């Protein structure tokens, strides 16, 4: 065995059917089938549509990953799968497929936490994690600030969103601005042409009182409403809406709070490594501002390339490979899918 355990990871917590294959710290395959286009006309992910798509995509995606990696399933050392959190019906498809592989091949099964997997994926890009590290995970489903002493075993929550996830705010604001779903990439694109100081949108949970109670928490619901009100006031006055400027100003408000709190957490926790992951970590402004702010105070910043930030099977395989390498025992074959799996539970 060269380079560590060969692990296949399955991810189906939302609308991407992901199958990744990792050997130790090396990514061999990352096959993803997305049902995002089927959800676009509904303006958000429809769970039943996603679950049906997972069933149809599962075997073809496993097949594609094996071909990409140039391996046979019998070569695997273990199977890993997202056990939660996520959409219950969608998770169940991936968990059932992973269990079936484990039984059919006689291989150990690791049911893992989706959020820990978002952290672990950077191992295949930038090598083993510094321990501890602070992780900022931002996507359509989650916005969390974590302290990670050991990604296979010990993940602690410092804060999270108290209402909408950051990615959700991007989707909703995109809708207000007449941009397509999913909103993140479209807001990012039009914002490059806009003035980010055009409107001073509110920075949620950053006032003195909020910093006492919600030091590392986020809130994006008020920001979203504030953007909607601003746009409507313009429309009612019969004035054109400067879409690029509003998008840039909104994005600036989100990114400002995310990076400010992440850097603060590093400083206060005495941790000089920050990792950013999740779908929103593909945002170009977030990447630029995080780099700038980390450089200013001497924090080492790690960000997987955008393709590995969104949900995929490689992240699950990467975490599974670490669990095998560190000798963690396998999960039971009757492990449940847990739609509200706490971030502190790394393995099911």
């Amino acid at each position, binding site marked *: 065995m060269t380079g560590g355990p060969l692990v296949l990871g399955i991810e189906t917590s939302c609308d991407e059917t992901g199958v990744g294959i990792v050997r130790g710290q090396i990514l061999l395959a990352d096959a993803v089938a997305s049902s995002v286009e089927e959800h676009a006309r*509904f303006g958000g992910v429809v769970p039943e549509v996603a679950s049906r798509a997972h069933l149809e995509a599962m075997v073809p995606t496993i097949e594609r990953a094996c071909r990409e990696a140039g391996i046979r399933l019998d070569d695997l050392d273990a199977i890993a799968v997202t056990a939660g959190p996520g959409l219950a019906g969608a998770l169940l498809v991936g968990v059932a497929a992973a269990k079936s592989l484990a039984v059919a091949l006689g291989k150990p099964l690791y049911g893992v936490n989706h959020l820990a997997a978002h952290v672990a994926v950077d191992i295949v890009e930038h090598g083993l994690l510094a321990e501890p590290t602070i992780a900022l995970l931002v996507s359509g489903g989650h916005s969390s600030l974590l302290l990670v002493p050991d990604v296979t075993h010990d993940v602690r929550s410092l804060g999270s969103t108290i209402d909408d996830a950051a990615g959700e705010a991007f989707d909703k604001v995109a809708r207000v601005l007449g941009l397509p779903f999913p909103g993140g990439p479209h807001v990012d694109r039009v914002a490059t042409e806009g003035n980010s100081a055009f409107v001073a949108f509110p920075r949620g949970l950053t006032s003195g009182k909020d910093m006492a109670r919600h030091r590392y928490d986020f809130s994006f619901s008020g920001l979203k409403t504030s953007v909607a009100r601003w746009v409507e006031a313009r429309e009612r006055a019969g004035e054109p809406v400067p879409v690029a400027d509003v998008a840039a100003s909104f994005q600036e408000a989100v990114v400002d709070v995310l990076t400010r709190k992440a850097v603060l957490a590093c400083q206060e926790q005495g941790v000089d490594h920050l990792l950013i992951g999740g779908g929103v970590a593909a945002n170009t402004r977030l990447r630029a501002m995080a780099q700038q702010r980390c450089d200013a105070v001497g924090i080492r910043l790690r960000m997987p390339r955008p393709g590995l930030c969104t949900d995929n099977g490689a992240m699950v395989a990467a975490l599974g490979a670490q669990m095998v390498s560190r000798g963690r025992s396998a999960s039971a074959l*009757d492990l449940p899918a847990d739609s509200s799996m706490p971030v502190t539970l790394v393995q099911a």
Partner: protein
Amino acid sequence: MLLLAIDTATSAITVALHDGERVLAECTTLDARGHGEYVAPGIAEVLSKAGRAAADVSAVVVGTGPGPYTGLRIGLVTARTFAFARGVPVFGVCSLDAMAHQAWLEDVSGALGQSCVVATDARRKEVYWALYEISGRGVRRRGEPMVAKAAMIADEVRGLPVIGRGAVLYAESLGPRIGPLDVSAGALADLAARMLAAGQTLPEPEPLYLRRPDATPPPPRRPALP
């Protein structure tokens, strides 16, 4: 031949092994919500009971429903993935057919008569159902399975024996009850083995959802201003 049979279309999470002649082992758990937990352990259990290895399985057959979607999909994805991993074929059989077949196998007194109904729980106060004709050689479904309120089909099926949980849930509209309440993978395997032996082509392992996903495009944006 070693046939692995799986069904998760009813409250039974059921797995069986069949050697072409008889059922070697069967494992059934009754739990309307636990499909995700019990299918894979069930496969491990029947293999161990029969003293066989996963690599000995030569084909997989799965109940294609109709049934509540979340549970149904677990059987289908398990069967398809297992078959792919072992490089063996995977077939589908309508789960209602497996229930009618079981009732026929067990019907020593001829109580089934010449026709019967299978009606299972479709939730939302509805049943998945189909009509069957009985003969000495077995059961034959008349038409495609459907989903309807029990009261809506009461006239059409009046007086016919009813197989499945629908007969218990909607006794005021349907009945008399006869045969199994849920699917047995042993019966599913037996039906599939007979079809294969007779040279019949078995259906693809495609789910019979019968309903579209509940989803409507969102209404036009509501004003945030009062």
